């Protein structure tokens, strides 16, 4: 499968052809928000286009994202599920869930460590819920926030969830 055939979708998401799945997801979530939630950026041009045209932009963004998921499936010969479906089914964001989402997005720990500037051993401990080996809570929380941001998850929600499980485990001594 040639990426050139998907250029139209990359253009809609305003991305270069060589973008990764994580880039695609980030751009999709960002653009969807820009064109569905009124802001100081869109209000001054409200008169510029009709609501039908605006809906059409959102529809194209959705179509491009889902079209590109298919491309990544073919390239990797496996199925990338829509991460939103996984996320909505999660009750607690512990290490195992975070690792699962990271792997679904095909992000490796090297890239993650470089982008978040968190040592890889901490990331491993985070994902294996190895609470004793993690630093004090305030640092660990910061790690979870950076981790979640990198996966384009809601950092506050994920950190809240992760830390409450951690605190409970530490209190009860497992």
């Amino acid at each position: 499968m040639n990426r050139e055939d998907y250029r139209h979708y990359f253009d809609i998401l305003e991305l270069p052809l060589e973008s990764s799945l994580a880039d695609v997801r980030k751009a999709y979530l960002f653009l969807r928000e820009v064109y569905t939630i009124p802001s100081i950026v869109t209000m001054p041009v409200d008169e510029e286009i009709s609501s039908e045209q605006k809906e059409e932009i959102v529809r194209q963004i959705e179509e491009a994202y889902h079209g590109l998921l298919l491309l990544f499936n073919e390239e990797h010969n496996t199925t990338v599920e829509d991460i939103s479906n996984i996320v909505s089914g999660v009750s607690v964001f512990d290490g195992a869930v975070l690792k699962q989402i990271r792997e679904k997005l095909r992000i490796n720990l090297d890239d993650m460590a470089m982008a978040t500037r968190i040592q890889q051993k901490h990331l491993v401990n985070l994902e294996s819920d190895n609470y004793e080996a993690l630093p004090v809570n305030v640092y660990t929380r910061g790690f979870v926030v950076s981790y979640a941001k990198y996966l384009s998850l809601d950092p506050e929600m994920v950190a809240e969830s992760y830390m409450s499980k951690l605190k409970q485990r530490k209190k009860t001594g497992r």
Partner: protein
Amino acid sequence: MKKDPTRKCEIWAVGGGKGGVGKSFVLSSIGMSLAQKGKVVMVDADLGGANLHNFLGLSRPSLSLTDFFERKIMLSDLIVDSGIANLGLLTGAIGSIGAEGIKHSQKNKFFNHIKKLDTDYVLIDLGAGTHFNTIDTFLLAEKMIIVITPEIISIENMYNFLRNVFFRRLGVIFTEHGYRDLIMSTWQRRAEYSINNFKQLVDFLRQQSTEIAGIINSELSDFKVHIILNQARNNQDIMIGNSVKSICLKFFGIHSLYSGYVEYDELVSRSVNQRQAYMKAYPLGRCAREIERITGNLLSGRQVSIIK
């Protein structure tokens, strides 16, 4: 825009419609950063209210562009020493003439002399507003830079400025192809053609002929502005640059590059009031590092990516 072979220097211009967004601060700081890489002349083309010297920590120079327009003194003789190596300043003038007071022939002469300045970079600071003399000066630049702040009025003015700039550019090209006043006459009859906005006007013009459509498409693909966001206070503010870039593309079909942001720092206004150049007074400050990054991005074409 297109490179003129007789031109010696590369011109960068900063505009943006609204006053008080930090155009002069951003331009002067970029100028100081760029002066480490080559010879720079900064031009304060805010003819009605020149103030660039303040950002360099200088008092008002006695020579100004007024001497060029009224006494016909050579531009190169009006450049004053900025106190920074490799950086010269050509200042505007308070009160004597505004952008609207410049005649067509004077403007052309001014542009020709700017292009022939013996320097690597000319950085032009424009006044607020959308007078056609301001816009023509903006269009002279290879790098057209717009400064915005995370405020609705600044963003609204930026869109307005950008539309004006693009139509001015298109108007010149149309005239060259024998379609003088096409944009104006179409716009005057907009009710009849049910044209309400920029996109509809562009689409209507495109339908007139394949030649016109070809001109518009080629101009849209050549036209590129650089966006700099000033006074960001958080990540959400920083992302406004990404959003504005997307709106310009999806609503107007205009390409832009989000070249960088500068975080809010009260030391900026303090250093101006103390007649100190921020980049000199706080070379290790956060804004100074952000300015260095913006200068690098403007040179290389790199952009700020989505950080969320």
